[in-house]
């Protein structure tokens, strides 16, 4: 069959990492793929951006922990230029008074850890063990298509599997999991640890990416979920060339298989003929045809914005219309003319993931403040200096600093235009408390508030999960029961973004699994 210029096998909307993973997997299966991206660059929230000429860095996401090896191998990303600048990046909690605390990865580090926190060391070891064992139970579910909630047999198989696996692990495990599901991370940590620093850091990890405070129910399970995602991946890593290098490699896969990636091409609407998808219409009115359309953008924007509510029944549309919780994460990228100096920080830890966290109560206050449109006076930060491990990011002897700020309101009281400067000052002052003189070393900076992230990188409401990771919005219930398993009521239209199972973060799994669902439409694999 002769193919005309605007007919493809697959159209993918959105060139974020999930869209590109799906596109690459489908392209490698021999399909002719077209990727449409509304902005002028690929990558979405996993892009590399330039702060000022000569200084480039990860725009939003900076460290990768859940990117599975099988995606990397399956798409042969190594051959397309994907390199790691750092593997197994350690996590260090910066201590305003006293020695900085590294979360131990091995026996030697644990010895040091227990010297600093002798009373919490055993509890920490137990916690990690419990977290791992619980995560191990759910980890396999993350890497496969969630079960079909409508299919009773599949559901029964699925439940039997979990129950058996849990039952095999013993009664204590079952009780532990039942306890963990509804519990808040704050209550759990208060009962186990003494050090406010350690409690703050563990709560920070469990709540990062959501607006929920450490005492919100269900946050304890988020820690398990995150641990399980980490098990899917290969540990905390850093790509050479910033996070965008992943998307560049994926784009290279798509291109090498004859696929097209078009930038600055917003989709106006999704064309539906009868009960199946026919293609998309671009903003300039041109129609692109394909029997298969995957959308990596927000589920609501896809189905109601692009496809139209008249293609959904009321209940299905209502499922997508719960008031979205806006993202609560901001990003600060700084260009430094010299290396930052963190007193008391060991030299090998300069490339580590550095956490600045207040005590649990202050973290909870920060969450409350965020809900009211303010930001806390004790911000919680994740700092990374990517140019330590990757010298290509900044000129010789100079550095970039990448900061993720937790609990930042989407709508600031008084408006972001008024508050932006004060906010940056507050963050920089907080960092300066650990790295004196950093204000003088700054030569340029970029602040991305949640609305900025939405505008620049297309994340609706600045939420990197495209819908909160709540217990009732996981697995086949993600983004909502009618649209689990990446499918939509329209044949051939699939969701492949972070709004689908297993959720946000640079894992590529939603895209990978959506591509699988699209290749086996009748659910031939369970």
């Amino acid at each position, binding site marked *: 069959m002769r193919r005309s210029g605007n007919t493809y096998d697959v159209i993918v909307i959105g060139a974020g990492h999930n869209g590109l993973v799906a596109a690459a997997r489908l392209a490698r299966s021999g399909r002719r793929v077209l990727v449409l991206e509304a902005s002028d660059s690929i990558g979405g929230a996993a892009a590399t951006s330039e702060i000022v000429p000569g200084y480039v860095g990860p725009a939003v996401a900076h460290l990768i922990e859940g990117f599975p090896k099988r995606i990397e191998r399956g798409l042969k990303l190594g051959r397309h230029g994907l390199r790691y600048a750092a593997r197994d990046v350690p996590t260090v909690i910066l201590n305003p008074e006293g020695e900085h605390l590294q979360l131990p990865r091995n026996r030697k580090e644990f010895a040091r850890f227990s010297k600093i926190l002798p009373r919490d060391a055993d509890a920490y070891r137990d916690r990690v063990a419990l977290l791992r064992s619980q995560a191990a139970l759910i980890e396999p579910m993350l890497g496969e298509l969630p079960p079909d909630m409508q299919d009773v047999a599949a559901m029964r198989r699925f439940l039997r599997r979990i129950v058996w696996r849990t039952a095999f692990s013993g009664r204590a495990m079952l009780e532990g999991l039942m306890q963990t599901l509804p519990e808040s991370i704050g209550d759990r940590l208060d009962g186990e640890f003494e050090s406010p620093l350690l409690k703050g850091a563990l709560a920070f990890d469990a709540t990062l990416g959501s607006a929920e405070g450490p005492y919100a129910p269900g946050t304890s399970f988020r820690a398990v979920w995150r641990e399980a995602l980490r098990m899917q991946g290969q540990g905390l890593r850093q790509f050479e060339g910033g996070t965008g290098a992943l998307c560049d490699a994926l784009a290279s896969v798509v291109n090498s298989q004859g696929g097209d990636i078009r930038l600055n091409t917003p989709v106006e609407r999704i064309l539906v003929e009868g009960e199946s998808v026919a293609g998309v219409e671009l903003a300039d009115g041109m129609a692109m045809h394909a029997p298969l359309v995957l959308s990596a953008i927000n589920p609501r924007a896809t189905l109601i914005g692009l496809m139209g509510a008249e293609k959904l029944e*009321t209940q299905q549309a*209502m499922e997508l219309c719960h008031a979205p919780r806006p993202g609560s994460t901001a990003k600060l990228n700084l260009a430094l003319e010299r290396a930052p100096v963190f007193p008391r920080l060991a030299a090998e830890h300069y490339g580590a993931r550095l956490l600045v966290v207040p005590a649990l109560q202050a973290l909870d206050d920060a969450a409350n403040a965020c809900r009211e449109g303010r930001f806390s006076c004790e911000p919680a930060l994740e700092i990374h200096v990517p140019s330590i491990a990757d010298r290509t990011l900044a000129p010789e002897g100079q550095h970039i600093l990448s900061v993720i700020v937790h609990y930042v309101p989407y709508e600031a009281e008084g408006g972001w235009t008024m508050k932006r400067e004060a906010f940056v000052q507050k963050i920089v002052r907080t960092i300066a408390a650990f790295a004196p003189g950093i204000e003088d070393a700054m030569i340029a900076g970029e602040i991305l508030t949640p609305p900025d992230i939405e505008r620049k990188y297309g994340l609706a409401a600045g939420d990197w999960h495209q819908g909160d990771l709540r217990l009732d919005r996981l697995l086949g219930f993600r983004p909502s029961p009618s649209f689990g398993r990446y499918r939509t009521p329209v044949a051939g239209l699939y969701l492949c973004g972070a709004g689908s199972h297993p959720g946000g973060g640079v894992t590529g799994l939603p895209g990978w699994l959506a591509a699988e669902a699209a290749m086996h439409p009748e659910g031939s694999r369970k």
Partner: protein
Amino acid sequence: MTPDSLPKQDDEQAVPRPEITDPADERAPVDPALFEQVAAEPPFTRAVTATPLHLETAGESHTNRWVTWNGYTVPEVLSDLTDEYRALRGSAVLMDVSPLVKYRIAGRDALAYLERLAAQPVAPLAAGHAQHVIFCEGGGFVLGDGMLFRLADDEYRLVTEETHLAWLADSAEGFRVRVEDVSATLGVLSLQGPLSCFMLTEIGVDEAAALEPGAARWVSIGGMPVYLSRTGATGDLGYELWCDAEDAPHVWRAVMSTGQPFGLRPAGFALRELARLEAGHPRAGHDYLSAFAAIEPRDMLPPAAIWPDFSIAASKGLFNGGAALRAAAHIAPSRRVVRLAVEGLEPVRFAAVSLGGKVAGIATSTGFSPALGANIALAILDTGALAPAGLAVLAERRDGLSIVETRLPARILAEPAFSHPRRMMVPAPSRA
């Protein structure tokens, strides 16, 4: 009298409530007039929710018998049900049907919205016409039915027996459409009977005769604009007059004064129920339950169980409940709404319908039909009880102070108890 019922003194100083409805927001669903608190003045603190025509109907009432219909107090019988019935079938009656629930649905996506909402195709409906619509929830069970008027290209009026605002507003998500409850702003008069067209012509509405069944147009009655539609559920010729609440009493008086010499009588709710029963129209909330109101799952009915001639049109695309109805198209509903006639020449009360001594269903509306000379009913029967003869009802008859229970044979009516060809005639007969 309780202190609570007295008007609060400081209400005068109260800050005025902000306007809820933003005219620019097409989706704002609620008409603020609905929530306006009308302070009751002592000693009449027990407020009667009155229709715009309350004073007119109250003036006509010789019986002081009232019923509550959708929260409004309306007359049950004004003079005598038999007299009112005789007027309905021999001349015409005028009824206040303002308690009907009326929704205005307007906006660029109004058609797409209704097409998704209703189980029937809505696109063929032209402006100035009305059609019967059924709407279902996602499982294919009926939520309600009503008359849908297309007032203009992108403006509709949906008239239902029960309130459905929550469902209508939920369904509006993603559509550029505004749904509002305009029940309180409209007065509705129902002029029904063989002489109804004649009387309208007498008033000076010459357009009435040419109006097809289901069609509607703006006319002027006594100088007031009235939206006149040839609709009604009496099985006979009839019209409904939709006007501003303020105009309604004047329209009522104009029609009454012209019609009275020709036998026009005002009538109440009981006659409306009887006429509807004779014409065989099930009423939502009475003969069937909305799927959201049904507590027992078996009380949720698919459209075909209530309207036997319902089928999904081939041209119909996606609609609420469509997927479920199409999937279950080959499965016959287990219960059906049917018309029953019961032998016996005097009015009796009955509810349970039995077959061979076993209860096979329940009569939901009953009445004595003068047209058929028999007790008739709308009943929900198990499908298994439909085919064979042998249906019976357990009837109660008052005899002095005692009650006599008798088992009366019943049969299923294939045709409504009353349906006159005049109903469909064009032009409508306009001579006395």
